[in-house]
C-alpha cells in the first residue's frame, strides 16, 4: 500500500441513489442495488440507481470489504483482510470459482450492478451460509424478471462517461411482463482506456473492454410457486493489469440456473427455494501487448473453471417466536490451468499449473432463530459438510508426482457452529455479540497448485495435499444506535486461527517464474490471530444532506509474530451527498493508511 492515498471522486448521479440496508443483522448485511418491492405476488417499481459504476465501486463502499487492486478492473474483494480461500463467493447462491491462477477474476468481475438486485455480506457463519468457510462471504443476488408489472414493456437505457480513463459505458434493459410470466434482458458494454492517476500520470495497461448480458425468465405457476430461469454471460477482453506483468486477453463467464420458489405465509414451512445451476469460466492471460523488452518469454496461460451444483432450502415457523432455516447444498467444481512457454530458442514448454483438480461438496446447514420477548433474539446454527478433492486426469496425477507421491484424493468432514445474540436496549440502541467456530478445507490451489506465481511476494507456490483443515474461533461484539438523523454502528471482532494456511519458503527450491524470488509451499501454521474494529456513521442533519463515514482497522499476526498478508490497516471512507431535485451530488474521500506491519 502506498503512503496516504486520498482519492476524491465527484460524481453526478442521475436519479437519487443511496444504499438501503434490508434484512440486516449484526453479522449479515444486504446492500440493495436495485430495489424490487413485492406486495403479495404483485411486483412493482424498480428504482433506477446508478448502474453505471463498476461492481467493485459498490463493494468498496461496504464496511468490512476491502478490494485488492491489480488494475482498473476486477479487483479482488476481501472481507476484513481474510483471503479468498477463507471466504465464499456466490452468485444467487450459486458457487462460482475464478479460473485465473493470478486471481485476476474474482466473481465480482463477472457481474454488473445492472444485473444485480443486491449484495449480501456475511461476516462469518450465519443462517445464509452455503459452504464451510471461516470468514463468511459475499452473495451477489441477481435481478429477476417480474410478472404482473404495471407496464407490459418497461426498459431503461443509459450511457456514461468517466474522464479519468476516458471510459464509456452503455447499458440497457428491457422487460416484458405478462400476468403469469415475464422475461427481462439486460446488457452493458464498457470500454476504458488507460487510467489517469491523480497527478495526470497515465497508468499504462489499465484498459479494459467488456460486455455483460443477462436474461431472466419468471413464471408464476400459481399463487405460491414461481419458476426462475436465469442466464448471465460476461465477456471481458483486452483487460490490462498494470500491477502484473501480463494482461488478460479474454475472461468469459456463462452462468445458467433454474430455480423454484415456494412461498405461503400461512404454512409452517412458509418459504422454500431450490436451484440447479451450471457455470463455466474461460480465462486466458496475455503478454503480447506488452513491450517486448519487458517480456522475457512469451507465455500462454489459459484456465477454465466449471461448476455444477444445486441447493434447496426453506424456512420453518415453529412458533411466532421461533424460526428454523435449513439448506442443503452440493456442487462440484473442476479447475484446469496450464502454461505454455515459448523460449526464443528451443522447444516450447508445457505444464499444468492447476493439474485438473476437482472438488465435490455436499452439506447441510440448519439454524434456529429465537425471540425472547420483544427485545432479545438469539440465532444458533451450524453446518456439516463433506468435501472430496481429487485429480481427474492422468497428466494431472503425473504432474502431482513432482511434489507429492501419495494418493491425491482427499476427503474431509467439516462443521461449523455459531451463536449470535442481539438485545435492544431501549428504542435506539442495540447490543450484539456472538461467537462461532468454523472450519474450512484448503482450496484446490492450496492443495494442488503447481508453481502458481504470487506477484505480491514474488514466490512460486506449491500446493500441499497433506494440508490440514484450518479452523477459527471468531468473536464479535458491537453496538448500534439509530435515530431518524443518526445511524451509528461500532463493532470489534477477532479470529483465532488454528492450522492457519500460509506459504512457507522452500529454501533450496529453484524458482520457475522468471524474476521470481523463491518457492513457497502451503503449510499449516500452528496459530494466527486477526482482530479489528469497524465503525460506521450516517448523519442526516437536514432532509437532503447525508454525511457518511466508514472506518475500519485490523491487525493480524501468526504464531511467530509475523504479519499475515493482505490485512488492511486503517481505512476511512467519508462522503457527503446532497439531493438537488433529480440530481445527487456526492463528494467522497477514501483514506488508506500505509501497512507498516508486514
Amino acid at each position, binding site marked *: 500500500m502506498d503512503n496516504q492515498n486520498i482519492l476524491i471522486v465527484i460524481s453526478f448521479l442521475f436519479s437519487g441513489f443511496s444504499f438501503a440496508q434490508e434484512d440486516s443483522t449484526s453479522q449479515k448485511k444486504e446492500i440493495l442495488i436495485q430495489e424490487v418491492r413485492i406486495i403479495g405476488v404483485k411486483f412493482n417499481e424498480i428504482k433506477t440507481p446508478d448502474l453505471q459504476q463498476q461492481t467493485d465501486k459498490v463493494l468498496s463502499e461496504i464496511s468490512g470489504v476491502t478490494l485488492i487492486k491489480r488494475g482498473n478492473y476486477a479487483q479482488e474483494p476481501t472481507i476484513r483482510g481474510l483471503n479468498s480461500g477463507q471466504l465464499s463467493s456466490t452468485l444467487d447462491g450459486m458457487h462460482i470459482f475464478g479460473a485465473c491462477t493470478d486471481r485476476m477474476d474474482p466473481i465480482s468481475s463477472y457481474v454488473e450492478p445492472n444485473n444485480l438486485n443486491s449484495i449480501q455480506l456475511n461476516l462469518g457463519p450465519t443462517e445464509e451460509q452455503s459452504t464451510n468457510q471461516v470468514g463468511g462471504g459475499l452473495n451477489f443476488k441477481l435481478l429477476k424478471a417480474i410478472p404482473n408489472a404495471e407496464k407490459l414493456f418497461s426498459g431503461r437505457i443509459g450511457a456514461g462517461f468517466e474522464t479519468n480513463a476516458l471510459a464509456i459505458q452503455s447499458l440497457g434493459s428491457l422487460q416484458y411482463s405478462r400476468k403469469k410470466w415475464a422475461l427481462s434482458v439486460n446488457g452493458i458494454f464498457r470500454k476504458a482506456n488507460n487510467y489517469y492517476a491523480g497527478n495526470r500520470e497515465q497508468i499504462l495497461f489499465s484498459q479494459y473492454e467488456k460486455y455483460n448480458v443477462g436474461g431472466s425468465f419468471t413464471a408464476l405457476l400459481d399463487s405460491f410457486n414461481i419458476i426462475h430461469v436465469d442466464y448471465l454471460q460476461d465477456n471481458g477482453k483486452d483487460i490490462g493489469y498494470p500491477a502484473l506483468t501480463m494482461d488478460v486477453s479474454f475472461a468469459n463467464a456463462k452462468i445458467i440456473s433454474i430455480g423454484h420458489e415456494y412461498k405461503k405465509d400461512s404454512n409452517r414451512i412458509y418459504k422454500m427455494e*431450490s436451484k440447479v445451476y451450471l457455470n463455466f469460466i474461460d480465462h486466458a492471460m496475455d503478454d503480447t501487448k506488452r513491450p517486448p523488452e519487458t517480456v522475457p518469454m512469451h507465455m500462454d496461460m489459459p484456465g477454465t473453471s466449471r461448476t455444477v451444483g444445486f441447493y434447496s432450502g426453506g424456512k420453518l415457523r415453529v412458533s411466532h417466536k421461533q424460526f428454523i432455516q435449513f439448506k442443503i447444498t452440493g456442487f462440484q467444481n473442476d479447475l484446469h490451468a496450464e502454461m505454455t512457454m515459448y523460449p526464443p530458442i528451443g522447444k516450447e514448454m508445457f505444464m*499444468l499449473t492447476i493439474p485438473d483438480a476437482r472438488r465435490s461438496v455436499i452439506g447441510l446447514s440448519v439454524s434456529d432463530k429465537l425471540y425472547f420477548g420483544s427485545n432479545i433474539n438469539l440465532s444458533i446454527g451450524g453446518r456439516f459438510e463433506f468435501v472430496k478433492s481429487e485429480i481427474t486426469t492422468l497428466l494431472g496425477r503425473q504432474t502431482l508426482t513432482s511434489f507429492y507421491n501419495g494418493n491425491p484424493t482427499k476427503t474431509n468432514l467439516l462443521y461449523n457452529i455459531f451463536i449470535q445474540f442481539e438485545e435492544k436496549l431501549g428504542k435506539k440502541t442495540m447490543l450484539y455479540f456472538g461467537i462461532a467456530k468454523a472450519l474450512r478445507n484448503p482450496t484446490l490451489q492450496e492443495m494442488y497448485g503447481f508453481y502458481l506465481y504470487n506477484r505480491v511476494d514474488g514466490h512460486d507456490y506449491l500446493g500441499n495435499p497433506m494440508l490440514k483443515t484450518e479452523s477459527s474461533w471468531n468473536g464479535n461484539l458491537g453496538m448500534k444506535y439509530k435515530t431518524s438523523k443518526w445511524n451509528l454502528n461500532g463493532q470489534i471482532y477477532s479470529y483465532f486461527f488454528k492450522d492457519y494456511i500460509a506459504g512457507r519458503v522452500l529454501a533450496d527450491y*529453484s524458482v520457475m517464474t522468471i524474476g521470481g524470488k523463491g518457492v513457497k509451499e502451503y503449510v499449516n501454521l500452528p496459530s494466527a490471530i486477526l482482530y479489528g474494529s469497524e465503525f460506521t456513521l450516517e448523519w442526516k442533519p437536514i432532509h437532503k444532506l447525508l454525511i457518511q463515514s466508514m472506518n475500519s482497522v485490523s491487525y493480524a499476526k501468526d504464531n511467530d509474530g509475523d504479519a499475515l498478508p493482505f490485512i488492511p490497516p486503517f481505512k476511512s471512507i467519508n462522503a457527503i451527498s446532497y439531493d438537488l431535485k433529480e440530481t445527487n451530488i456526492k463528494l467522497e474521500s477514501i483514506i488508506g493508511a500505509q501497512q507498516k506491519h508486514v
Partner: protein
Amino acid sequence: MKNIFLAMFIASISLVSCKKEELNPNPTVPIAPVIVNYTTLGTDTTANNEIVTLYSLTSEIKTGYNKTFITVKDLSGIAITNATVVFEPLMDMGMMQHASPVENPIYNSDIEKYEGVVIYTMSSLSGVWTLGVNVNGSSVSFGITVLESPTQVVRSFTGTDGEIYIITLVPPSTWNVGMNELEIMINKKTSMMSFPADNDFTAVLTPEMVSMAHGSPNNISPVLVGNGHYKGTVNLTMTGDWRLHLELSKAGVIINTDAYLDILF
C-alpha cells in the same frame, strides 16, 4: 404443486450425479497389451550354417542406447535358443577403428529372440558402422546407418583420472511430466575394442530447464543397480528441453563435474 420442490430436488441430484459420471473419466488407464513392431535390419548365414536375423525397435537407428534383437535358426528353420551370441560393433573412421559398449544378447523366450543392447557413440557421419554378431564363435556382419540423436543422450569423456568413459541415457518408453525413473549406464574404455561396464561411480543429479535456467525439486541421484547401470528419479515439472547435469565421482574423487545428458519431450 407441493411436489415441485421434491421434483426439483431429485432433478438436481440426478443432474449432478449424471454430470459426475460424464465428467469422471476412468482414472486408471487400462494397460494395453504391448505390441512391439520389430524392424528387420538384415539376415545372414554364418559359416556354421546358422541363419542370423537382426532386429531393432525402430526403423531408424540413432546414437545412444539401442535395444537390439536377433534370432538364430538352422537351415531347416528351427530356432536355436542356446547359442552364445556376442555383439561386435565396429566404427571404421578410416584412420582408426573402434568398438562401442554393448550388452550381449540373452535369449528371451517371451519374445523368442535374443535381446541385447548396442550403444552407438557417434553417427555414421563420422565413418562406417558395422555390427558384427558372433554366434557360437562364427560371425556375420551387418552395415548399420546411425543417425544423430536430436539431443545428447550419450557422451564420451576423459575423466580427471585420465581414463575415458562413456555415459549413456537408458531411455524410458516415454517421458512424463512429473516424476520419472532415470537410468544411466557408464562404461569404461579399456582399449579401442573393450568397453566394460563400470560399477564404481557415484552421481549427483541436477536437472535444469535450459530455456528458463531453473531446476526442479525432489530429484533422486542415480545409484548403482549393477552391470554399469545406475537408477534414480528425475522430476520433470514441464515439457521442453531438460538438461540432466551429472557430477560423477569415483572413490570420493570427482571424475567429471558435469557429464550432462539432454532430453526433450
